């Protein structure tokens, strides 16, 4: 087989190239070729399959499909398929009457089966539907043998879509790796060097070995190609990690921004902050339900309506908490910690009783589903891209509120020196409530974002309090810019660590990093310095 193989292949190749234009021209199939499918020898069958595969005819596809399904039957000289009760000649489509008394299906062994699959895939390359062609071309990326080369070449010639064309070119090169002609192999290898797929790398690797590849130039080119692909893969991986890091950062920032405001103003950690996120997420769920019931035509835009709803819902709950509980605990930060924890328990249980203990389903609108492929194997999901954008929007909003409004001025004044702010007439009590409402509202906005990528359930907020606190601590209390950098740093570092150590270890390492960091800079990244800071 090994020594006859190349000659056989070359023979077939010429044969196929001769046959191709002819078989394209005729609608019906060559009866001899169809009969050859029922030949004794597998090699003969394969030759026939390949020819049919290259024929670009829907009838050939039908016949091969039938063969693959063990429905291609043979009786004496006739090769036929049952079409309902009728027996139909596979080649001509003529009805065979009467139905032969004895017949059997053509035996298909595993070798034939893979040939059939390839041939069927090749036939799909001529399908009028672009999607079918794309799928077929994609399929061939991993398993195109030399036998497919002419078929692919033919398909390339006919293909008009640039994307599919590129895929075909790649598949063609893959197929040519088995080409007996060293020059053809070299060209293939050089073409494949542009790939960024791990599968291609896997196919090129054997060529580095002298036992598989006799030609030194090809080996050399293959080595270079593998290096190029690996570099590209590594780059893609880093890009992917940076993106997921950014995505995590934006979530962290949304969760932490509100906390940064309330902690900055009042110096207390609101342990129910995570539950304000949860309220925002449930408000999104509620908006979605309303839209489904009353405005099903606009269901894709429910998320936009959810933004103000979530803000208001969380802000109202936040102001209520501040007025009833947190206000009474000023100057007792540890007690506030415990009391707000109690509030979070109550809110969780309330959510459980109102909406059930199970997660509720919040669907991405169509415009947030799917993603963009920016390079092979790297797809950025739309919902995450939108959330990063949304975070920037919220950040801008908070910045404007803090820098350009009276409330922002008061909040900044109280953050820096509460008694002094009170002395110069800042209504600290009212500002506290407003600031708390604002922080809570921003948490609600975070909830909208979370609902698009995470499960929405009563416990969803619990995991965020520690992370968002770390962001606030790292950034420096009362420093918005600090919070942004801290969220970015934590998000990206966490994702990179997760890349090579797993999520749990990453979490622990991040915690250790934060502790070590606080050793060096107890006041955070953007520290307020001076002799008034301590105590």
């Amino acid at each position: 087989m090994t020594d006859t193989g190349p000659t056989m292949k070359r023979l077939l190749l010429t044969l196929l190239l001769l046959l191709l234009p002819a078989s394209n021209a005729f609608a019906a199939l060559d009866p001899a070729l169809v009969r050859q499918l029922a030949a004794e020898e597998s090699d003969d069958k394969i030759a026939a399959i390949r020819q049919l595969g290259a024929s670009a005819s829907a009838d050939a596809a039908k016949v091969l499909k039938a063969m693959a399904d063990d429905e291609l039957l043979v009786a004496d000289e006739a090769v036929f398929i049952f079409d309902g009760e009728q027996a139909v000649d596979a080649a001509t489509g003529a009805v065979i009457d009467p139905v032969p008394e004895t017949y059997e299906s053509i035996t298909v062994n595993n070798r034939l089966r893979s040939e059939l699959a390839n041939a069927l895939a090749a036939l799909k390359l001529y399908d009028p539907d672009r999607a079918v062609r794309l799928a077929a071309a994609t399929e061939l990326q991993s398993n195109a043998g030399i036998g497919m080369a002419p078929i692919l070449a033919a398909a390339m010639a006919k293909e008009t879509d640039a994307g599919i064309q590129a895929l075909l070119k790649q598949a063609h090169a893959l197929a040519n790796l088995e080409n007996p002609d060293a020059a053809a192999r070299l060209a293939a290898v050089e073409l494949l060097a542009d790939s960024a797929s791990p599968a291609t790398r896997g196919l090129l690797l054997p060529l580095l070995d002298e036992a598989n590849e006799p030609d030194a130039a090809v080996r050399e080119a293959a080595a270079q190609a593998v290096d190029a692909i690996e570099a590209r893969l590594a780059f893609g991986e880093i890009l992917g990690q940076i993106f997921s890091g950014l995505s995590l950062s934006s979530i962290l920032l949304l969760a932490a921004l509100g906390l940064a405001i309330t902690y900055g103003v009042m110096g207390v950690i609101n342990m129910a902050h995570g539950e304000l996120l949860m309220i925002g997420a449930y408000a999104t769920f509620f908006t979605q339900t309303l839209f489904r019931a009353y405005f099903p035509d606009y269901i894709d835009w429910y998320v936009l309506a959810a933004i103000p709803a979530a803000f208001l819902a969380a802000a109202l709950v936040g102001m209520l908490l501040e007025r009833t509980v947190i206000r009474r605990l000023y100057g007792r930060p540890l007690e506030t910690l415990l009391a707000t924890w109690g509030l979070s328990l109550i809110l969780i249980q309330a959510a459980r009783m109102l909406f059930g203990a199970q997660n509720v389903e919040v669907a991405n609108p169509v415009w947030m589903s799917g993603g963009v492929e920016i390079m092979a194997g790297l797809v950025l999901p739309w919902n995450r891209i939108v959330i990063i954008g949304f975070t920037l929007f919220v950040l801008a909003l908070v910045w404007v509120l803090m820098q350009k409004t009276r409330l922002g001025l008061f909040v900044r004044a109280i953050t820096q020196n509460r008694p002094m702010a009170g002395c110069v007439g800042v209504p600290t009590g009212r500002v506290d409530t407003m600031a708390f409402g604002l922080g809570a509202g921003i948490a609600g906005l975070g909830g909208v974002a979370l609902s698009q990528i995470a499960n929405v359930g009563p416990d969803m907020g619990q995991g965020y309090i520690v992370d968002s606190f770390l962001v606030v601590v790292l950034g420096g209390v009362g420093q918005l810019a600090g919070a942004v950098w801290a969220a970015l740093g934590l998000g990206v570092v966490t994702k990179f660590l997760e890349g090579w150590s797993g999520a749990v270890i990453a979490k622990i390492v991040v915690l250790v990093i934060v502790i070590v960091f606080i050793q060096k800079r107890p006041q955070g990244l953007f520290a307020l310095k001076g002799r008034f800071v301590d105590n």
Partner: protein
Amino acid sequence: MSTNLTDYDTDNRGGEDGTQVVGHILQPGVDLSHKVILYLEAISVSFDGFKALNNLNLTIDAGELRCIIGPNGAGKTTMMDVITGKTRPDAGTCFFGQTLDLTRMTEPEIAHAGIGRKFQKPTIFENHTVFENLELAMKTDKRAWASLFAWLSQEGRDRITDTLKQVRLDHEADRPAGLLSHGQKQWLEIGMLLMQEPQLLLLDEPVAGMTDDETERTGELFKSLAGKHSLVVVEHDMAFIEQLGGKVTVLHEGSVLAEGDLATVQADPRVIEVYLGR
């Protein structure tokens, strides 16, 4: 010479028998061979670009009573922070006696070496009784292990009683310190300072909030301490400074503007400019 807390004799776990273990404390600890107890040389400290101390040079002689004056923001408190280890200078050296580099020591180490400090705002332990405040301040082995087994001896008790009388709080011994009046708190803090038996006392506005009578008595007390101890007093009250009668240093914008006795300093046109001219 070792100055670290950890360098003490660790085999002998003093305090078990309840006596004071003064023997374990490095004493006197300060090399006063040149009759100078404190050297500040070219100290600079800045906070976000603001120069709190700017090339400050100051020496205090052993047994001296020195008054420091200066307008707000002149760097008086920051200077004390540097001496007691609370703030690290960006540049400059700070020596206690000839050998102890204060910029390399922690706050408790500096306290141990013999520098006591009274804060501008009286800081005492409000939930502890007056007696306990003094007990905590008392010079003894202050490591955690020793405190676990420490038991107040009769001598210790006597010393506390003496100090209570000295600062006129003997009738308040068992009251929580938080209930004292402002002047009494100032005195309690001075009492605590005395219990520490420091070589150098740093006193930040010690008579603020005291009546004239109390101020005068405080002045007497300080004068009686000078000689045996060295004192650095930061004050605004010129009458009090006059009463103390020591050398006066004027700080301005983080460095020394003038130095000398009170009359000389008050006549110095630069000082007048700083105090009145702005």
